[in-house]
């Protein structure tokens, strides 16, 4: 079997989690030259309600393009957590926004929490970068791509004027997660 690593980003439509998925897929498949497939919810929920984006990363071609057993899941809202924090594998990880997911679904996986939206608002000053903070945190949590690959993919995606902002957001997400992991 081709080894596959499955990551699901979920949150409210409009929070930029589809973009976060695309950036992770670019980091893996364009920058690191591995294989990745990104898919997303496509219904009206993409513009409100709970939406998700899935990335499958592997060392060889990826056949089945949807998640089978999720290795790592992000949930930015309670609704998204209730709907999409399912099918996480034994020993997998779930990262939730500590302010917006008061009741993370329990299971045979580790649950971590970070104040992602608050970090965007208070530390960076722009809520819009919450998805980039979340991406940095998920990469720190999973090591699925190198820190530099993620940063390079983020910077390739944003206009020149917003590069510093996004670089800061990505680093904050990555480092805050590493602090949590270090206990």
């Amino acid at each position, binding site marked *: 079997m081709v080894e596959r690593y499955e990551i699901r980003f979920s949150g409210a439509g409009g929070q930029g989690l589809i973009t976060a998925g695309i950036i992770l897929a*670019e980091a893996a498949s364009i920058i690191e030259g591995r294989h990745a497939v990104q898919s997303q919810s496509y219904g009206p929920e993409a513009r409100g309600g709970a939406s998700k984006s899935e990335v499958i990363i592997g060392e060889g071609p990826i056949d089945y393009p949807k998640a089978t057993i999720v290795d790592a899941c992000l949930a930015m809202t309670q609704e998204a957590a209730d709907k999409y924090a399912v099918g996480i594998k034994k020993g997998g990880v779930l990262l939730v926004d500590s302010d917006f997911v008061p009741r993370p679904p329990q299971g045979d996986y580790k649950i971590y929490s970070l104040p992602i939206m608050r970090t965007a608002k208070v530390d960076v000053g722009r809520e819009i970068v919450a998805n980039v903070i979340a991406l940095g945190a998920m990469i720190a949590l999973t090591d699925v791509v190198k820190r530099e690959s993620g940063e390079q993919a983020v910077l390739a995606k944003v206009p020149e004027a917003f590069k510093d902002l996004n670089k800061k957001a990505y680093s904050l997400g990555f480092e805050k997660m590493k602090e949590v992991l270090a206990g």
Partner: protein
Amino acid sequence: MAKKIALLQGNEACAMGALYAGCNFFGGYPITPSTEVAEVMAAELPKIGGKFIQMEDEIGAMASIIGAALAGSKALTATSGPGVSLKQELIGYACIAEVPCVIINVMRGGPSTGMPTGPGQSDVMQARWGTHGDHAAIALCPASCQEIFSETVRAFNLAEKYRMPVQVLFDEIVGHMRERIVFPEPGELEVVDRTAPSVPPEKYKPFDTSFGDVPPLAAFGSEYRFHVTGLNKAEDGFPTTKAELVDAEERRQIRKVECPEARADIELNEEYMTEDAEVVIFAYGSTARSARYAVNELREQGIKAGLFRPITLWPFPEKRVAQLGEQVKAMVVAEMNLGQMVFEVERIVKSTCKLGLVTRVDGDPLTPTQIIDQVKEVL
């Protein structure tokens, strides 16, 4: 120099493939889940002097590409099942008038409005028999973003070579998912242009079969003047009811696609672990990705499974399916409809092996587990 690579949606890859093939006209009407094809064409065609037009409806879109193609363009439209239903009369027109053009169908559920944002594979028989009357059909069914690019190029090539409409069918899953595309360099993939007339304008006949089953096509509106009609016609393009001419035309239009040489040229399949297989899964498009996963799992469990994936759905790969039917104990057809291609497979293998079917129409893809369960049940 390193090749250009990008992470693209299937629909975006389709548009890029069309441009590679020399497409310079797009006429369409937006419809989920195909709209990104039109979006990319709208952005890119003006840069290369091509034309993009959003028509008043699906029928007008089909009419526009027939007109553009006759006038010498390589023309594309992209739609989904409900749009293809509306286009059927004109698809038949393109068949009988022998107009090269490409129709993309990003399949969703159906019939009618169905489930616009969910995937489906229930238009595969429509691609064969959607328009009335005897006619040949070419339909291609890619399963990855890279293959959507290359099969769109091949669709244009086949349209030009056989002077007829060609359909490319994929579904919402591959249409919207993103994968890495390695862009072929110019010249790396074959690009075919229609055969232009070798005779002077006054000698030109648009259906002159002395040049073979696919007569050369002049650009309408050039110094070559000719008549185009949806009626049965003689070599000069004017309507006829003469029995022998009608019979010859009808038979030629089937023969140009279904003769052994043409089939060998048009048919394209991928096989995975079929050499020693005792059970073969017949699956196409995104479902074939689940089937491949299933084959790997079954092999790990000691079951000699293989995958047969038609990339050309029409004409149907009769010869190879018959050979596999002789080889295996069972075939299992997996499709996101309630059983369509299974009838073709059954027609070929009914006396040689057992046949199973696994289907799904609820908007989610067939999972590897569903396919594995069906394989075990049939065995």
